[in-house]
């Protein structure tokens, strides 16, 4: 213990004296290494930020990792069986998607086919094709244009936010615990809310196949990550207004059941009942969400290419450190021989040379990390309003770790050979000079 701490303290003093005597050299080493470490930090930060962005978007639009997705047809009795099985459950939720138009009756909506509000021309009337041929969905294209908004309506049997963490934007989210209301409560996404804010739209909702129009009450707005106007409604409240067969038609409605990984019992029951209702077992597709894995593989190749380039730049820095390190050892031959003569162990001398370059690497890493963090904050402050991805962005810790590792590896590579040289200096020949 005593010996170790004596060695450590001696090496700190000797190393400190060495660095102080060669401040400019240390600085030049750092300069030569800086770009390489910076490149590694930036690449890693970019990859982490991109992965984070991909992941949080995937969570909103698809679901949290591990969520099981069952794609089910709506016809052939599947719908009532599913609604009945999942009634009152929170660990498995069915989402039935259909098209709806809210606004004046018998007009062409401002965004036919539920296109984007700002860019309705891009979408045009939606066309669906089936074995009987292709036909337009919704109101006939020749209907006069009017104050109505087409949107994607999702009817839910339970709180879907367990699986897709929609971000509240205004008002409330659907309350699944209360008794169903006669006038369906709906929650819009932000794109739909944009349309309602821009056009004065009467509260009348038409759904394909429904016998009567409902009068929806908009109770809130969420960010669901989607680009199309959409609305969410309790399935039981919606079904007060239209027969199940209306949703179970061939007009573009689809059903998706989201269930948590440990809701296997519900899934099994649902499967059995669906098969009992005459559904072919292989028509039930299950998929487990793995957005993280997908994002990783999507980014992995890019990341390796960029890290490879950063590594090359780093290598140039290593050559710089090595060059400076060898020159320094050459210059310090007498000092090292003298230190050995007064009893300094050669391992300690090698350690001092190595720790001087390691320290240079660490200082460089600190500088590179500091510069990237400040730059990222500046970019976030300047562009944050326009690019939502950059809003409230924080420097990813993975980039910090990558920077420190790059600095240490460079210090190790650049200091290893000089350290060996320092340890091999013979005392006798130098002292005879």
């Amino acid at each position, binding site marked *: 213990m005593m010996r170790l701490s004596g060695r450590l*303290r001696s090496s700190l003093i000797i190393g400190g004296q060495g660095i102080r005597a060669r401040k400019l050299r240390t600085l030049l080493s750092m300069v030569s290494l800086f770009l390489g470490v910076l490149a590694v930090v930036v690449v890693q930060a970019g990859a982490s930020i991109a992965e984070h962005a991909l992941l949080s978007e995937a969570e909103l639009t698809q679901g949290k990792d591990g969520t099981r997705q069952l794609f089910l047809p709506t016809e052939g009795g599947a719908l009532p069986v599913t609604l009945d099985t999942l009634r009152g459950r929170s660990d498995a939720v069915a989402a039935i998607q259909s098209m709806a138009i809210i606004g004046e009756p018998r007009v062409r909506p401002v965004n036919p086919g539920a296109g984007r509000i700002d860019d309705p021309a891009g979408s045009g009337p939606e066309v669906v094709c089936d074995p009987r041929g292709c036909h337009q969905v919704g109101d006939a294209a020749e209907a006069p244009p009017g104050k109505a908004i087409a949107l994607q309506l999702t009817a839910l049997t339970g709180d879907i936010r367990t699986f897709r963490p929609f971000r509240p934007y205004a008002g409330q989210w659907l309350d699944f615990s209360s008794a169903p209301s006669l006038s369906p409560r709906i929650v819009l996404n932000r794109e739909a809310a944009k349309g309602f804010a821009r056009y004065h739209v009467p509260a009348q909702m038409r759904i394909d196949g429904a016998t009567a129009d409902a009068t929806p009450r908009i109770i809130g707005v969420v960010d669901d990550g989607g680009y199309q106007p959409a609305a969410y409604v309790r399935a039981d409240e919606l079904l007060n207004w239209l027969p199940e067969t209306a949703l179970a038609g061939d007009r573009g409605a689809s059903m998706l059941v989201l269930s948590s990984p440990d809701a296997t019992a519900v899934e099994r029951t649902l499967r059995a009942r669906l098969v009992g209702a005459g559904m072919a077992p292989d028509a039930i597709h299950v998929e487990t969400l793995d957005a993280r894995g997908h994002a990783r593989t999507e980014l992995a190749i890019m990341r390796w290419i960029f890290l490879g380039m950063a590594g090359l730049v780093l290598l140039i820095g290593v050559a710089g450190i090595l060059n400076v390190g060898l020159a320094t050892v050459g210059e310090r031959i007498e*000092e090292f021989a003298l230190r050995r003569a007064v*009893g300094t162990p050669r391992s300690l001398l090698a350690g001092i040379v190595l720790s001087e370059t390691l320290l240079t690497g660490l200082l460089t890493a600190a500088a590179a990390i500091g510069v990237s963090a400040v730059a990222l904050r500046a970019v976030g402050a300047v562009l944050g309003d326009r690019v939502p991805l950059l809003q409230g962005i924080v420097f990813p810790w993975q980039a910090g770790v990558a920077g420190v590792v790059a600095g240490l590896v460079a210090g190790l590579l650049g200091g290893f050979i000089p350290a060996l040289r320092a340890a091999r200096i013979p005392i006798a020949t130098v002292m005879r*000079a």
Partner: protein
Amino acid sequence: MTSPLIELTGITKTLKGQGEPRPILSGVDLTVHGGESVAILGRSGSGKSTLLSLIGLFDRPDGGRYMLGGRDITRLPERKAAALRSAQFGFVFQRFFLLKHLTAAQNVAMALVNGQGWLPRRKRRAKVMAALDQVGIAHLAKQRPPRMSGGEQQRVAIARALVREPGILLADEPTGALDTETGKLVIGALHAATERGCGLILVTHDRDHAARMGRVLQLDGGVLNPVTEPVIERVGA
């Protein structure tokens, strides 16, 4: 007397340069007791520095036996040799080998900051000042070598050799780069150390300096021979 501090028997050393390997030492016998002073004379190239580097454990002999304080250290591993260099030996060279970027005090402290044990700053400082005082240059503690005279620099080097209170001082032509007067001063400082019980082996070309040592030996043909009285008297005259 107790067992001798240094006891060399039949030490041989062959050095291989670019050409043929050349035998430099071919059977050196030498016994030095604690507090004794020995001068070694010899032609240039006779192997004096080589012998000193073997005694100081910079290098190992090819043959023979090296006893230090009754312990055989002929084949000592480098790690232990470093510890012994630190604890037992003090070195002074013709060139002073001071580090330009350190003060006199820091240069002396170098022998204490060598990874062999640890002294707190205050004790270190006290030892350094005592050593500088011993060679009469305590007032130069904060001076850097480029601003010191040769004699002052050599005395810093002697203080560095003395600071660990070694059993023996090895001095290789310590006055070689100094004028006669300064040389005398330096030899005086070394001599004073022997009066405190430290052994001294002095390699020199100066017979006056040699004459001040307790014993004078001559390295010739790879072996050490005592120098006969008349020679000393003659050179001393």
